[in-house]
């Protein structure tokens, strides 16, 4: 993502802040710099290292955060909602079953327009019980009104942890943000991470200006009042507007972050798509694997490309349509299943984003990586081979659907 000489200069300034960090540890570091008012969290593998590292920071006085060790994830998000309604910057951390336990409150947080940040480490939902990575947890809350970001590596996990709060608190947005990193693949993998200086982060995050506060006794309010059929619909329509606004706000925040850090992120990251015949759309750590396969294959000729989705909600429909328009075939990799649906989540969203009618690519969905099943470079090459066949003669009967599955 380093694109210019200026970017190199900026990055060069931060040479002294290079660390070898896991994705989890990198997020804890971001949380330290943000110094939220309240963190209410409950441990669950593989997000626990974030909570452990952060509670050490609390115990050591490195932050001013009120850390509330709650009895469950449901309580964790409840406490964050209460804190945010009282005007506090509130954050929490979870995975999988923990996120599932928060389900009813996800809708409450978004409905109340509270800028809560949830650091998620993606882990498969039971049953069967599995502690490894897939996206069933966060895909399960994709309709809740939370903004969703997916990090492909520890550097992105750190950066997204900083971006999340900033995006959430924008006055036009005021929506909670769920930012994810793949369990183990990112959370427990040590990579080179460049940190920003503490005061740069402080300036970027700014002072919290809550839209409302229960503690403001000069302006007493009621939060969470009941509505009848005469008001509910209008409140929800307003939330749609906020999510639409986020599509405009996020690129602006990303640009500002790019100038500060030298890492110029976009809602979607295109690799070799300008002249690609076939492309894969993916989010999370697999995007990194696919990117390296694309670069290798391109040396030998095949015109392959990758579209990495950094932002999943709001779905960057226009950017996706623009990026893929020249392709003959597109494979969308979903790391979760939507049972009974015509396609899996990301594939459905991609299909919904492409214009109807002739001229567009044939879109094919692939399921991969459930329960931590690894996506290896040879799997990616198999998908590209499949896509070349689709590009030539359309979808075919023996087509690959499940990548890495034992039939």
């Amino acid at each position, binding site marked *: 993502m380093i694109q210019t000489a200026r970017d190199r200069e900026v990055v060069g300034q931060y040479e002294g802040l290079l660390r070898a960090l896991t994705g989890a540890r990198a997020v804890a570091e971001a949380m330290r710099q943000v110094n939220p008012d309240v963190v209410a969290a409950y441990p669950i593998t593989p997000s626990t290292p974030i909570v452990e590292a952060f509670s050490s920071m609390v115990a050591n006085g490195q932050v001013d955060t009120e850390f509330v060790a709650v009895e469950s994830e449901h309580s964790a998000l409840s406490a964050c909602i209460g804190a945010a309604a009282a005007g506090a910057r509130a954050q929490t951390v979870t995975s999988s079953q923990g996120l599932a336990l928060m389900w009813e409150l996800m809708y409450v947080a978004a*409905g*109340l*327009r*509270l800028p809560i940040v949830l650091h998620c480490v993606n882990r498969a939902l039971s049953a069967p019980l599995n502690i490894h990575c897939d996206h069933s947890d966060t895909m399960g809350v994709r309709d809740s009104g939370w903004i969703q970001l997916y990090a492909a590596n520890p550097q992105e996990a750190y950066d997204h942890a900083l971006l999340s709060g900033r995006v959430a608190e924008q006055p036009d947005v*005021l929506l909670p943000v769920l930012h994810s990193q793949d369990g183990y693949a990112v959370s427990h993998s040590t990579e080179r991470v460049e940190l920003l200086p503490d005061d740069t982060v402080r300036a970027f995050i700014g002072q919290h200006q809550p*839209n*409302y506060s229960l503690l403001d006794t000069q*302006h*007493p*309010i*009621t*939060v969470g*009042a009941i*509505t009848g059929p*005469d*008001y509910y*619909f*209008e*409140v929800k*329509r*307003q939330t749609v*507007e*906020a999510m639409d606004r986020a599509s405009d706000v996020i690129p602006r925040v990303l640009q500002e972050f790019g100038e500060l850090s030298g890492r110029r992120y976009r809602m979607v990251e295109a690799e070799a798509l300008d002249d690609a015949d076939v492309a894969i759309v993916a989010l999370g750590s697999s995007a990194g694997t696919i990117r390296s396969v694309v670069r290798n294959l391109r040396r030998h000729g095949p015109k392959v490309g990758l579209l990495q989705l950094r932002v999943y909600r709001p779905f960057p429909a226009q950017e996706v349509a623009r990026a893929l328009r020249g392709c003959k075939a597109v494979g969308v990799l979903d790391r979760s299943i939507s049972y009974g649906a015509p396609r899996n989540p990301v594939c459905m969203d991609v299909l919904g984003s492409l214009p109807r009618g002739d001229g567009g690519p044939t879109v094919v969905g692939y399921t991969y990586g459930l329960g931590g099943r690894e996506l290896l470079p040879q799997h990616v090459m198999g998908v590209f081979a499949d896509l070349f066949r689709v590009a030539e003669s359309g979808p075919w009967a023996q087509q690959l659907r499940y990548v890495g599955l034992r039939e």
Partner: protein
Amino acid sequence: MILPGWRKLSPGAVLRESGNAVQHRTGAWRAHRPVVAMTNCTHCMLCWLFCPDGSIETAEGRFLGIDLEHCKGCGICVVECPRNAIKLVPEVESAAGETR
């Protein structure tokens, strides 16, 4: 009354005016209405104390009537009245507005 469109609502539907529950006419939910036999009423105010909706009207420490805009007809006053002075009658049977 014309209700506001979605653009006019405060984010998160936070209510910035206090005490507006009184505008919600929960009396419309009522299927039974309390009727008080004033000959038995000793103005002990227990009905007022127990009413969950604050729908017992009083004046100078004496029972005055029922706030029909908000009384839901739950019948707690009937159960709590120590003089059995209150009975519930179906809305459809009683004369309009009669509470005594």
